[in-house]
Every structure is written in structure tokens, then in C-alpha cells.
């Protein structure tokens, strides 16, 4: 008995000694393969967290519901990054819920072997809610992190808490407040002015977890391949609203529309990609006769041609530093991934598979390019580690899988898959685990993840 207790205590001390002091940024967030190991191994560096429902300070049904929702959303957000181990929520039932910060039953939480406990209160004040949150070290009963939030948006409060806990406790940039964008035919509208019945595609956005799906464009035409600007205030995409394909930018908060390829009268323009600083856009154009990669300023000025080859050059993506561009070219006879300097020099071929497309360069610190690779009848998502020169496969023939894009911290990807019937948007960990379905209506394509 004594022996058992002693072991458990030593374990807790070992963990907590490092954890409350965030000065030791753990190596784990840099190398998520290690994260997986630590969570499942006996070494036990991942602190065990409990996230009960938040405390409703007034007992009206609305406040109680909000308090419950924040606890659930926060749990999902924290679990998404796998930085902590979690005490399952269904085991909390035996513990009397606290009514304020003053009566948290720390002894009972210690019995459940919790290292950390997130306690929060919710108070409704008119149209907004006031949320107070504290992260307690269960053993010492000291609050190591605490914040107050006032907002009308309960989910946003939970997302913000998650990001701030990851930042302060694990030196990790969480993605709970990031957004996705994709195009979809879900509204079933038909294109005007054509004889064949053709469905339109419009641009949509959603939270990273698939909530708050909203339509951005009302073009009644093809609007495809959206890309978030680095400041997450605009979306660049390919639109057929002018007849042929051209590149437009929707400034979603200002409610305005810019055309990047306004002066372009001959040829088509596809697949914009923002430079990391948001000042330039790489895209594909046929203005000189066949598909080549070009770079332009955001306002459409200073168009510069990057590739010169009679083959197809398409689907550009920028390196995190903005000095290189990866793209797809079939100059070898089949579509493969190439890299070229943003100055047009230093062309290098990176893949030798049967058919590769839609390269997406990871953010730092990773130096990886994700792409869709033909495998049998469909495609699978593969990742090329540029430093090691090795590729790994994320999906294994569960439907056809296309159009990968990285989350801003590089630990997740968004992509499309037909594994659930129609084409839907999914997210997946960079280790190939934790697949989550984002869309459920219509067909959805070519997603991108905001900074």
C-alpha cells in the first residue's frame, strides 16, 4: 500500500516539476512522432488533464448549456493536438461538481490521477458571456494559468482557451481558432446560360473543426480552389464568372471583390497561391500559349513568368520563406512535383511516381511537401520530407484522396476523400492518425487551411 502510493507520488512530482514552468519548451511539439510515443509509453511526460463542464454561475438553462458546451469544445480542441493525456469525461460523474473556484474537490481529482484540472465559470451578462478559467495543478492546488474572457461566442471562448493553454503550457501554436475554406456544390444551384444542366460550385469557410460552415461567393458559376490570405481576411480563388477562368480575391470582412488577372484577355488563369507575406500571388496561366507558372503582385501588377516549357506547369505552392515555389509539371511525360526558385532559377525534380499533383509546402519548422499521388485507381496523400529525402503515405486507398493542405502549425492536414461516399473534406494528423470528417453536405473540393 505504502509502496504503491510512493510510486504514484514520485511519478506526479517528476511530471509536475517540469510542467508548470513553461520555460523548458519541450521538444515534443517540434517532433510529433515523439509525442505519440510519450503518450503511450510508461515514461509519461504528457500531463494528465481533466476538463469537466464549466460552472454556470446562474442556473438558467441557457447558461448551463453554454457552460457544458465550453467544456466539451475545449476538450475537443485540446485533444486535437495530443499534447496532453486526458482523464475520460465519463469518469467525472463520481466527483461532485464544483460551484465556484472555492470548492474544487482536488482530493477527488487526485484519486482519478489527474495532474492538471481546468476549472471555469460562466456568467451571462446581457448578450455576452463572461468566462473565467483557471488551470490548476491538482497536487499543489495552485492555479498555474488563468484568464477572463468576455464574448458573445461561446465556441470562440473555448477555442481561445485551448490556444492559450497550448501556447503557455506547451509552447505550441494551437489551431483551434483557425479556419478552413473549400468549394462545394451543396446548394444544388444550376449554372445560368448553358444548355447542359451544370451545377455551380461556390466558396465556403468553416472553423477548423467543421463548425460554422458559411458560403462566401454568390457567383452562380464555377468558383474553385480557394486559398486563405496569410492575414486570414481574404480568399483568392479561380472563378469562371467572366467566361474563362480568372483569379479573384474576396475580401470577406470588407465585402469587396478584386480581380487579380483583370488585364488578362487571352488565356486562362488558375490556382492562385499566396506568398507567405501576402504581397504576391503565384498562379498558372495559359496567356503565352500553354500552362506556365507566373508570379504577380496582389493587385495584378508586375506579372512575371517563372517557367518556360511546352509541357504543363501548374499548381504552384510557396516555400515558407517565400524563396522557392513547388509545382506540378508533366515535362517528363507524367505529372510530377518540381521546385524552382522564386527568381526562376534552380529547377529540381522531386518525385518519380506515376502521377503526382497539388503540392503543398508545410510551414516551418517542418520542411515537407504534401501531395496527391496516384495509387491504383485513385489517389492517396503522401508527404515528402525534404531534409531526409523520404516520402511517407498518409492514406491507404480509403476512397480517393486529393488536395492536401497543411495546418499553420504543420501538425495536421486537410484534404478531400471519397471514403464516405461523396467527396468530402477531412482533416488528418501528419502521422496519418486522427481522421476527422469536416463536411457532410454535397460534394466538397480543394480545401485550404488558414494561418
Amino acid at each position, binding site marked *: 500500500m505504502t509502496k504503491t502510493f510512493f510510486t504514484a507520488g514520485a511519478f506526479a512530482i517528476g511530471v509536475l516539476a517540469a510542467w508548470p514552468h513553461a520555460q523548458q519548451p519541450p521538444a515534443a511539439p517540434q517532433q510529433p512522432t515523439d509525442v505519440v510515443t510519450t503518450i503511450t509509453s510508461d515514461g509519461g511526460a504528457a500531463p494528465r488533464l481533466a476538463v469537466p463542464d464549466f460552472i454556470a454561475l446562474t442556473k438558467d438553462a441557457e447558461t448551463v448549456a453554454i457552460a457544458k458546451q465550453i467544456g466539451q469544445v475545449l476538450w475537443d480542441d485540446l485533444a486535437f493536438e495530443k499534447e496532453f493525456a486526458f482523464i475520460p469525461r465519463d469518469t467525472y460523474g463520481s466527483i461532485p461538481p464544483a460551484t465556484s473556484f472555492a470548492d474544487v474537490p482536488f482530493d477527488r481529482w487526485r484519486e482519478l490521477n489527474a495532474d492538471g484540472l481546468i476549472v471555469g465559470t460562466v456568467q451571462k451578462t446581457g448578450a455576452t458571456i463572461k468566462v473565467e478559467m483557471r488551470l490548476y495543478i491538482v497536487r499543489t492546488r495552485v492555479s498555474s494559468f488563468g484568464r477572463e474572457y468576455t464574448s458573445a461566442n461561446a465556441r470562440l471562448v473555448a477555442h481561445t482557451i485551448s490556444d492559450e493553454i497550448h501556447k503557455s503550457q506547451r509552447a505550441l501554436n494551437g489551431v483551434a481558432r483557425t479556419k478552413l475554406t473549400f468549394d462545394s456544390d451543396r446548394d444544388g444551384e444550376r449554372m445560368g446560360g*448553358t*444548355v*447542359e444542366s*451544370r451545377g455551380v*460550385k461556390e466558396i465556403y469557410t468553416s472553423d477548423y473543426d467543421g463548425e460554422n460552415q458559411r458560403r462566401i461567393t454568390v457567383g452562380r458559376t*464555377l468558383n*474553385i*480552389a480557394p486559398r486563405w490570405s496569410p492575414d486570414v481576411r481574404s480568399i483568392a480563388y*479561380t472563378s*469562371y464568372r467572366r*467566361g*474563362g*477562368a480568372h483569379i479573384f480575391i474576396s475580401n470577406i470582412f470588407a465585402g469587396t471583390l478584386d480581380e487579380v488577372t483583370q488585364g488578362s484577355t487571352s488565356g*486562362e488563369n*488558375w*490556382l492562385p497561391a499566396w506568398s507567405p507575406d501576402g504581397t504576391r500571388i503565384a498562379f*498558372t496561366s*495559359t496567356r503565352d500559349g*500553354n*500552362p506556365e507558372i507566373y508570379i504577380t503582385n496582389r493587385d495584378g501588377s508586375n506579372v512575371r513568368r517563372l517557367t518556360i516549357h511546352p509541357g*504543363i506547369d*501548374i*499548381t504552384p505552392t510557396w516555400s515558407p520563406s517565400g524563396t522557392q515555389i513547388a509545382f*506540378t509539371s*508533366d515535362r517528363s511525360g507524367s*505529372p510530377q512535383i518540381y521546385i524552382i526558385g522564386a527568381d526562376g532559377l534552380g529547377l529540381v525534380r522531386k518525385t518519380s511516381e506515376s*502521377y503526382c*499533383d*497539388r503540392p503543398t509546402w508545410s510551414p516551418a519548422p517542418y520542411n515537407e511537401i504534401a501531395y*496527391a499521388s496516384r495509387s491504383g*485507381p*485513385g*489517389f492517396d496523400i503522401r508527404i515528402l520530407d525534404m531534409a531526409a529525402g523520404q516520402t511517407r503515405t498518409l492514406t491507404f486507398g480509403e476512397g480517393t484522396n*486529393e*488536395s492536401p493542405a497543411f495546418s499553420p502549425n504543420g501538425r495536421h492536414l486537410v484534404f478531400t476523400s471519397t471514403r464516405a461516399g461523396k467527396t468530402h473534406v477531412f482533416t488528418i494528423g501528419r502521422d496519418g492518425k486522427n481522421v476527422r470528417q469536416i463536411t457532410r453536405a454535397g460534394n466538397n*473540393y*480543394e480545401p485550404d487551411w488558414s494561418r
Partner: protein
Amino acid sequence: MMTAARRGFLMMALVSSMAVLACAKKAAPVARPMPPPAPTTTPTTAPRPPAPPEPVAAPTVVPPEPVREDAITSASLDDLNRNSPLKPVFFALDSDVLSAEAQKALDDAAALLKRYPSWAVTLEGHCDERGTAEYNLALGERRAVAARAYLVSVGIPADRLRTVSYGKEFPFDPGHDDAAWAKNRRAHFVVTAK
């Protein structure tokens, strides 16, 4: 008309000769006979007003001839595209090469386009669903351009032929088998002006 003009001319000649004779006697009557020269000029301008109607009449005369020949010219653009006399051109997987069949279809299209020189068409490039959405934009463009280049090579003016690629966005057949894919790998004609 001519006789009237001649009569007027004779009258004028008579009057003027009389005026010359009268002139010897007194000047006042001269002012009255003078107006007739104006009528002599109006007869020469008179044939012109009928002239403008002639160009209007000419176009109405020319179109009826083809109408009697076939129903194509009388059809609206929508009807024309719904039952298009310009047949789509089909391609092999991942290819923009024009097969003998494709060239035959394009020859037929070229014959029609020569017969109706006012038509402008858009060539749409389409792909089946087996490529990626992104690369297929370029592949569809290549197919449309290949069909356009062939038509230009057999004498259709390039400025009557626009191209657009829809990649795999608008399959003709929504199926997921070889038969559907074969129908979807196509260059499709849309008549945009006639």
C-alpha cells in the same frame, strides 16, 4: 419618271428661250421662269431616296436561301447547342492526341463552320474524374487547344474559335465506369454567335 424629267427639261428649255427673248423686252418676268432649274436638279436627286431601302432588302433576301436548305440557321443559339450539329471530340485517357475518329469529327465541324462563316464557337475541354482536379484544368485546356489547332489548320479563322477548360468539373456522364469516363474526356462545341 424619265418622261416627266424630259418634259420638264423641254419646258425649261422653252421657258429659258422665251426668257432670253423676253429679256430683250423687260427684266421682271425673268424671275418667274427661273424656278424650273431647281426641279431639274431634284429629278437627279430623286432616285436616291429609294436607294436606302435597297440594303435593307438585300439581307432579307439572302438568308431565306439557307433557311430553305436546312433548319440550322433558323434555330436559336440554345436550340443549336441543345441539338448541336457540331459533335464532341473524344480523347484517350490522359491524352490530348486527336485520333482518326476525332479528326473525322473535326472535319465535319470544319465543314459546318465553313458553311456558316458567321458562327463563333467556344471549344470546351473536359476530363474524366480519374485525374486530380488541379492538373485536369491543364489537361482539358490542352484538349480544347488541340481541337482548335486542328480546325485552324484546315482553314477556320482562329478568331472564331475560343477555348475554355473545365477540367473534371462538368462530366457529361456522372457515372464512375469506363463508359462514363470515355464520354467525359471530350472537347465540346458551344456556338456563341451566329
